[in-house]
Every structure is written in C-alpha cells, then in structure tokens.
C-alpha cells in the first residue's frame, strides 16, 4: 500500500494530466506572439520529457498535499497517516523529489512534510487525492473577508486585482481555485480542493458555472500571458466552490495553481486492493 502511494506521487510529478495537456495545446494553437510561443513550446516539451524519462516535470516538486476521504469502516484507517508519511519519505529518495521542507526557526531543510486534509465518510474505502503544489503559485494565495454588501461583484474585483498583482509569478497559464463562504479557513481549503475538478468541467450550479466562465474570460482579457510575458492565455480554467456563510461574513479564498498542475488519485478498498488514476 505504501508502494501504491509512492506510485501515485510519481505519477503526479512526472505526468501532467491529459485534461491539462489538452488545454495547453489549445493555448499554444491560439498564440501568435513569439515569447508566448517560446514559453508554451518549452512547456509542451518539458511535459513530454517528464513522461518519457519518468522525471519530475518541474523541479519544484512542491509541498505534497493529500486530501483523504477516509471511510470509517476501512481496516486501514489507523495506519493511513503513517503510510502517507513514510511513502513521501521514500518517494523523495526514489523518484527523486526535491526535499522541500524547511524548519521555520532554524531554516534547516528537513526533507518533505505531507500536508493532510481529512474527511471522514461512510463506507470501507479510502480515497486519496495527491496534489504536489509549488511555492511560486502557492505564494499568490489570498484571503479576503468581504462584507456581504460587496458580494459576488466584490469577489470578482478581488480576484482580478490579485491576478494582476501576481502577473508572471505563479507560472501562468494558471488554474485558479476560489472558495466562497464558510469561514476564513474553509474558504481557502475549498479553493484548494476546487483545483481537483478537471479542466473544462463546470460547477453543477448554473449560476456558479456562469461566474467561473465570466472570471476566466476577464482574466484572459488581461493579456498577462504565459509566464507574464504577454499573450492570450493567462488562465486555463477557474474553479469556484461555495459553502454557507455567517450572515455578517463573506470570506473568499483564492488559490493559484501553475500550469504544471500535478495531481493523482488513489483508492484503497477493504481488501487492500488499490486503484490509481489521474
């Protein structure tokens, strides 16, 4: 089972998922500026090399984040945290990953530390989403506690301002995750989780789906372009998730993801059988 988690991490860092690759290819076809094409050509070549040679596409193999949906009747519930931690340690040596964790006080590099988000669910399966996420895009994350009066129009302004401010730093074309509602912490968690939804797949609520499309269009009209050097594609997609809010609060969390949107999923059933996919 530990090996399966290592394999999922390997799949995530060496192979960019098909939904992302397709949308990058589309972006390449649309661009005619030489710098935008230089960057998108490099991106598509890097993706090919990563997959062919089984090496990390991006050297920033990120903070490896795990979203775990843990079935309360799974016989592995008690060991899954230890399995994830030891798998990440081995993956760091074997794949290899960049040791990416630094002690806050001493600045010493201490390897790789997994960030795990837990959700207990019914049933006997454990589903894990692996999301290795680089520092450049993560540094652009933002939280705003808007007033209810500002509402969705305020969300739009906040998002556009943040995207402009960050320019080329998060490695555009980006994928943007936005969490609206809940509380300050939940808004950011929803924003990060939103990134797991495939490119092009809209929110099931029609109004939110329309809001995603509006934001995407407006972000791309900024012409920040691939790597911030100008061009038609600044974002590949925008994903919005919502949760009920306090009557006085309107929290908005934004999480940026770079074009190297690495993700993989695995599911462990009660017999220990494992399925891995992207």
């Amino acid at each position: 089972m530990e090996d399966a988690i290592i394999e999922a991490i390997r799949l995530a860092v060496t192979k960019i998922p098909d939904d992302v690759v397709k949308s990058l290819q589309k972006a390449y076809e649309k661009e005619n500026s030489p710098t935008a094409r230089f960057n998108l050509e490099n991106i598509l070549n890097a993706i090919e090399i990563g997959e062919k040679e089984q090496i990390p596409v991006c050297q920033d193999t990120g903070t490896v984040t795990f979203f775990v949906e843990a079935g309360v009747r799974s016989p592995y519930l008690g060991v899954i945290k230890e399995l994830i931690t030891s798998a990440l340690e081995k993956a760091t040596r074997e794949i290899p990953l960049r040791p990416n964790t630094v002690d806050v006080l001493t600045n010493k590099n201490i390897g790789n530390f997994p960030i795990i988000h837990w959700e207990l669910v019914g049933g006997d399966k454990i589903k894990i989403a692996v999301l290795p996420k680089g520092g450049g895009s993560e540094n652009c994350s933002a939280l705003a506690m808007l007033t209810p009066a500002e509402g969705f129009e305020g969300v739009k302004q906040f998002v556009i301002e943040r995207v402009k401010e960050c320019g080329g730093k998060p490695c555009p074309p980006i994928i943007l995750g936005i969490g609206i509602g809940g509380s300050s912490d939940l808004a950011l968690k929803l924003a990060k989780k939103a990134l797991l939804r495939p490119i092009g797949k809209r929110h099931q609520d029609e109004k939110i789906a329309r809001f995603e499309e509006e934001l995407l269009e407006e972000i791309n009209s900024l012409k920040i372009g691939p790597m911030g050097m100008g061009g038609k594609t600044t974002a590949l997609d925008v994903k919005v998730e919502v949760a009920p809010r306090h009557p006085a609060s309107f929290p908005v969390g934004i999480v940026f993801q770079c074009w190297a949107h690495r993700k993989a999923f695995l599911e462990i059933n009660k017999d220990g059988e494992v399925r891995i996919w992207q």
Partner: protein
Amino acid sequence: MAVKLTTPLSEKEVLKLRAGDIVYLSGVIYTARDLAHRKIIEEGAPFDPRGAVIYHCGPVVRKRENFEIVSAGPTTSARMNKYLDKILSIGIKGIIGKGGMNPEPFRKHKAVYFAFTGGAGSLAAKSIRRVVDVHWLEELGIPEAVWVFEVKDFPLIVGIDAFGDSLYSNRH
C-alpha cells in the same frame, strides 16, 4: 534576434542585448535563491562574481557517483528583488529566472535578466552538461545551495535589458 553567448559576460555583450532577444547561453552558471543571496551579500560570493550569471533555481538532484541534475527550472525571481541592487553591484552581469524583476537595477548596473519558462524543469535540465561544484550544501540544503553548472546552449529570452526595458507589464 538570436545570439550565442558564453560566460563570463562582458559589458559590451550585455549592452548589445534587447528585451525579447533569444539567447543560447553556454559556460558556467551559479544557482542562488533567497538564503544564498543573503549569504553572498553578507559573506561574499564563493565564486568570482565578475561577469558571472546567477540562476534562480533549486534543482532536483540525484547522487550516484557524482551529482546528477534531474530537473532544474527557474524559481520566482521577484523574491530576490530585495537583494538585486547589491548583487549586481559586485559585478554579476546576468540573472536567469522567471516572472521578472525590478528593471531599474539592471539599467543602473548594465546587467541583463534572462527568462526561462517556469515549471519546465525537465527541459532545462537538458541544457545542463554537468555539475562542476556545489557550495554551502550542508548548511543550506539541496534547493538553496549554490550549484555550479556547466551549461550548453541554454535557450533563454531577454526579459529585461541593460536599458531597463522589460517584457513584463506588471509591477515588481
């Protein structure tokens, strides 16, 4: 315009470059990130800075007989804006990174900012022929150490030239 350049860079070569030019860079380059910048400024560079090119990069490294570079794309340069004026004042003529930087120090010190595509680490590693040396590895760890790379025809875009012209529209 596409030109081939070899490190160390002379001021004359740097002044010929314009934002948007493609450069194929060969020779020796030095990686440096946040902590290495601070150490270089406080303690001096562990290499001759005159005409040198610094790469904002924290590579994935594999150690077999020697160090091998697995993946080595650029990191976000704007984090190093704080050190830029001092770093260029010791004679460094080129910086490779992504996302752009404050253009003014490049104009002031007649230096140039080269951009490579962020995230394309597997491709960048193809331009690295070998690891010549590494400084401060024990103290700073793999991503932050100063790695000395020999590169061959590393394809770069001039993002900011020595006249302060920049391809980046946003402020840094």
